């Protein structure tokens, strides 16, 4: 889509040429192709009302954000609707984004997760979603996977490395983190669901998150 905000000098090469600026201290986002605009540059474009910047950001992250939404709500059609709403919110709320508070991907993931969990709670669909998750896991673990593009292969490397970090945790820690992050459950809710003392849940979350956090520091060097 043509954007009136892109000047003739920038039109051919899109925004900026500083992909390296994305590899900040607080991000583990996968590397970009040489010459691609950084996430920060795209966010700046969106803040200036550049629809093409939003289009590029969508192309870059719609797959990741949809996977996150699906992980929470387990419904393809609802996930698509929510994805559209989330990118519209990114467009509308871009002025509130500040690089000082974090990186664009972190901001978008936070926003998407909150919206997905809100959606799940509003519909009171925990039981239904769990049932679907169970069926999907048993019957078709990769049901939403489509043919990999080149970009996804790069993403795939990052994913493999991150999953390695996460899968190194004891299953009980993984479960506690999964319930907290993807289901938005409180410690008490996790304790009730897993029939585990509250203190144990807290310890599992603290230890698990610390291990992942420390693992990500090494991962940044590898990326």
């Amino acid at each position, binding site marked *: 889509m043509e954007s009136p905000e892109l000047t003739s000098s920038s039109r051919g090469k899109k925004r900026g040429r500083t992909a390296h600026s994305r590899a900040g201290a607080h991000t583990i986002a996968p590397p970009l192709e040489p010459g691609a605009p950084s996430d920060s540059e795209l966010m700046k474009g969106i803040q200036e009302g550049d629809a093409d910047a939003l289009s590029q950001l969508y192309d870059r992250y719609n797959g990741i954000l949809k*996977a996150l939404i699906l992980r929470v709500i387990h419904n393809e059609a609802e*996930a698509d609707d929510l994805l559209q709403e989330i990118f519209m919110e990114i467009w509308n709320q871009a002025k509130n984004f500040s690089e000082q508070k974090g990186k664009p991907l972190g901001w978008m993931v936070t926003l998407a997760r909150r919206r997905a969990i809100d959606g799940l709670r509003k519909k009171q669909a925990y039981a239904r979603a769990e049932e679907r998750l169970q069926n999907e896991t048993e019957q078709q673990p990769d049901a939403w996977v489509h043919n990999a593009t080149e970009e996804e292969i790069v993403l795939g490397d990052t994913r493999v490395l991150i999953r390695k970090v996460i899968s190194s945790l004891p299953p009980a820690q993984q479960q506690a983190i999964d319930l907290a992050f993807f289901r938005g459950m409180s410690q008490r809710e996790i304790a009730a669901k897993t029939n585990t003392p509250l203190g144990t849940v807290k310890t599992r979350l603290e230890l698990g998150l610390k291990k992942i956090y420390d693992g990500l520091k090494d991962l940044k060097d590898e990326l």
Partner: protein
Amino acid sequence: MNFEQFQNQSRLYVIGALEAEELEEFEQAREKFGKKAEDFISKCYALHEAFALSLRPAKSSDAIKDRLMAMVKAKKQT
């Protein structure tokens, strides 16, 4: 609360897993540690990225992007 305890709480905070009674104590510590606390909390948001990036990207319908860009265009014109 010492800073190491604050770090543990921060990681719970960013994924929304602090209980209400813990939140109050966390906010007090956050104020006490000032910029050091804010910097650490910012770093903790990398956990969000990590959990999202650990998932296999999902395909969304082309119509979603078309609708999104049409909405953006309409909004810009108003």
